[in-house]
């Protein structure tokens, strides 16, 4: 193998390039990214950057010297526009065509827009550094911020905006925020935390239209007739995988790039990070997770599989994510979706702690927590990784951490 192209130059793409070099690959290594900046990290965008605690230069995933040491054919500020998979040629937006022997797709996702709100001043989405800086300028003391979508991203921004003194309204289309992702009872606990911090949370709030005057947003009108005045609107209603450039490639596209248990989409074509929907054998299900940690872990796995075609390993991680809200950290291990039961084992909001375990069939499939020790969480993770049954897990944890069960 002497020509590997990685498309998407953020967490997943850069980690893949690093892992390939670490594992001894010495051939040509092209890294293509449509953003102009050196690869940077996204989680701080809705946290330290929005809060004004960090300058943007702290986001860099690696310093210039570390990137130079990778000896990359680095092409930033130019997107991939197409792929001729049969000829193994990558097409770039500037007209270049690049032959490759192996390809890694790490193009991530972009924010979903609210139809009709594009181009209205004061309406934001949050995915890039530019987005974060634009939103930050709009968030001042006393400004009225309406956030459409009460998922983790909307929740984090609500928390930071309250701290900055903004007047915050959070809109959730369903009866309980995050119910699908984490279960109803957990969603209600998280909703309670927002209310305690002075956020107005409206549930069953379906947006009809964004109101504007002279091209600037003035409010959000709901389907039931309510009107919520706004100076700034954040649309946080999920994301869309960046796979349009692969439309004519013949690769299978569904909810992202469809990959097998090795993270392969085709021979010598692999997916990494938010864009990849792969079969996770640990849970025997296809999943696409938008978690920062997964981008790194999948990059390591893909680098191994690419360089060791005769000794490939299935990518079977226990997914992990965290979210920072109101000074507390929410952490989750496992696969929380599609659960049959979400059991709240601990809930003490004044102490800022809770712990929820997830069951699918007779297995423990996930845990979500706030304010638990790293040791306790690692024990839960171990049980999920080993495929422990629900009963065994609860019994085990009663021994390790009696307060938890």
């Amino acid at each position, binding site marked *: 193998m002497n020509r590997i192209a990685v498309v998407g130059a953020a967490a997943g793409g850069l980690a893949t390039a690093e892992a390939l070099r670490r594992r001894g690959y010495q051939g040509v290594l092209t890294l293509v990214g449509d953003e102009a900046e050196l690869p940077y990290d996204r*989680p701080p965008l809705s946290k330290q950057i929005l809060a004004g605690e960090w300058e943007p230069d702290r986001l860099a995933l690696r310093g210039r010297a570390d990137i130079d040491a990778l000896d990359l054919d680095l092409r930033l500020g130019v997107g991939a526009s197409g792929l001729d998979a049969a000829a193994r040629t990558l097409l770039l937006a500037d007209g270049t065509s690049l032959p490759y022997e192996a390809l890694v797709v790490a193009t991530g996702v972009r924010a979903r827009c609210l139809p009709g709100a594009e181009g209205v001043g004061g309406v934001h989405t949050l995915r890039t550094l530019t987005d974060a800086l634009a939103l930050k300028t709009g968030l001042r003391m006393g400004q009225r911020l309406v956030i459409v979508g009460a998922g983790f991203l909307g929740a984090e921004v609500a928390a930071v905006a309250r701290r900055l003194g903004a007047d915050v309204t959070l809109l959730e289309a369903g009866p309980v925020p995050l119910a699908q992702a984490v279960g109803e009872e957990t969603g209600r606990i998280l909703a309670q935390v927002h209310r305690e911090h002075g956020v107005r949370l409206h549930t069953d709030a379906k947006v009809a239209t964004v109101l504007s005057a002279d091209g600037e947003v003035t409010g959000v009108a709901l389907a039931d007739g309510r009107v919520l005045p706004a100076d700034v609107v954040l649309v946080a209603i999920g994301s869309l995988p960046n796979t349009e450039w692969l439309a004519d490639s013949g690769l299978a596209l569904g909810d992202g790039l469809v990959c097998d248990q090795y993270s392969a989409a085709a021979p010598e074509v692999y997916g990494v990070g938010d864009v990849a929907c792969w079969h996770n054998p640990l849970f025997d299900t296809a999943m696409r997770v938008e978690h920062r940690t997964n*981008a790194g872990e999948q*990059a390591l796995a893909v680098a191994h599989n690419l360089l060791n075609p005769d000794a490939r390993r299935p990518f079977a991680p226990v997914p992990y994510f965290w979210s920072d809200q109101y000074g507390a950290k929410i952490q989750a291990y496992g696969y929380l979706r599609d659960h049959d039961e979400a059991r709240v084992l601990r809930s003490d909001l004044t102490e800022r702690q809770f712990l929820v375990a997830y069951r699918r069939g007779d297995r423990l499939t996930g845990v979500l927590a706030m304010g638990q020790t790293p040791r306790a969480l690692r024990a839960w993770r171990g049980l999920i990784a080993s495929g422990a049954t629900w009963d065994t897990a609860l019994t085990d944890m009663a021994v390790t951490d009696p307060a938890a069960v």
Partner: protein
Amino acid sequence: MKITVDEPKCVAAGQCVLIAPEVFDQRDEDGMVVLLTEAPDADQHEAVREAALACPAAAIHVADS
């Protein structure tokens, strides 16, 4: 090998502890990374480099010495 961690960047993910438990630990109160040794033995170098790659906050820096 000399390891440095940028503590304010750490997000308490614990990847480093899973990969190199002899070199990294986490504080009980908030999960922040604790470096057990700045200059680990040679048999730990491989694991430390993997941890630096896997850390989701790019908070671990490894310099050769």
